């Protein structure tokens, strides 16, 4: 009986791991698809849209000092409502009607991880 329980627990653990891995792959794809064009896949703010024509520099998510000043709610709000929603540049688009709430939550965690 104990053996069956241990096996069940191991399988449950494997499922949890597989689920977390799938979610990590998914959120990376969401970040790379929507955010990386300006923030870069490495989160440093050097995406392909950062040209001499663009006056504003996208946020560097790896800057620990700067990111410590942003609450999760700031990040959530700016993703959904765009730069002006937190008095920042309109070059940050409003993604609220494009990215699902669930994916926004995953993005908040993913973005936070750049500064860890």
């Amino acid at each position, binding site marked *: 009986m104990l053996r069956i329980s241990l096996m069940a627990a191991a399988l449950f653990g494997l499922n949890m791991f597989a689920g977390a891995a799938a979610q990590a792959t998914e959120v990376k*794809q*969401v970040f*790379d*698809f*929507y955010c*990386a*064009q*300006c923030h870069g*896949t490495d989160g440093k703010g050097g*995406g*392909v*849209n950062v*040209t001499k*024509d*663009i006056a504003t520099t996208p946020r560097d998510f790896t800057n620990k000092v700067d990111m410590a000043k942003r609450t999760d709610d700031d990040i959530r709000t700016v993703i959904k409502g*765009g*730069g002006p929603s937190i008095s920042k540049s*309109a*070059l*940050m*688009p*409003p*993604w*609220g*009607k*494009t990215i699902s709430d669930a994916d926004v939550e995953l993005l908040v965690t993913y973005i936070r991880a750049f500064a860890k």
Partner: protein
Amino acid sequence: MRRLAVSAFLGVAFLAMAASPAFAAGDAVFKDKNCSSCHYTTGPAQEKSIADQLAKKGPELWYAGSKFKKTWLLAWLQDPKPIRPMKYNSITAKNGGDHPKLSAVDAAGVTDFLMGLTSADVEAGLITPKYKPKAKLIFNKKMPCLGCHKSPDKKGNVSGGLSGPSLVGASKRLNPDWIYAYLSKTTTFKPYRDMPDFASYLSESKMKLLAAYVANFK
């Protein structure tokens, strides 16, 4: 009711077009030149996820006849200059400008075929190209359009980001009514794209203003 009538009319028009020899011949050239290996031509939009979008090698063309201007399309197929600074679906690789060229005869056939692929979601006669300072303000300052799209100013100076298609020459390339339809019903044409759905952030009148502004780009 009006929408139903318009859809029915367009359906009949499509069937008439699809039955025309020029459309059928163009379809044959399209298949013969292997264009369908990169572009799908049967609507509605087929993408169900970001992965579906990323799996595509080139833009969907099922509404090409509503999107493009015929004269531009005929010329471009014979001398295809890059429209996107970056390779399709890439934010790291530049567009190599390697789209196949077609002969004048083949280009004429493919143009006939593609111009027959229209969408009932593009209402004709709504947008007239026009420069308005208010629209320029929306494009450059109030909304993030400039961040991803290159565009010209009145003097012809070009500026903008690189991830989206360049809008330089939009007046020759794009149907003004399609620009408005794309802004107002984005997901109908592209369920997954790296451009926000602006319909909830811009009023109908501002989207029309913006469409008219983009449609005037030289």
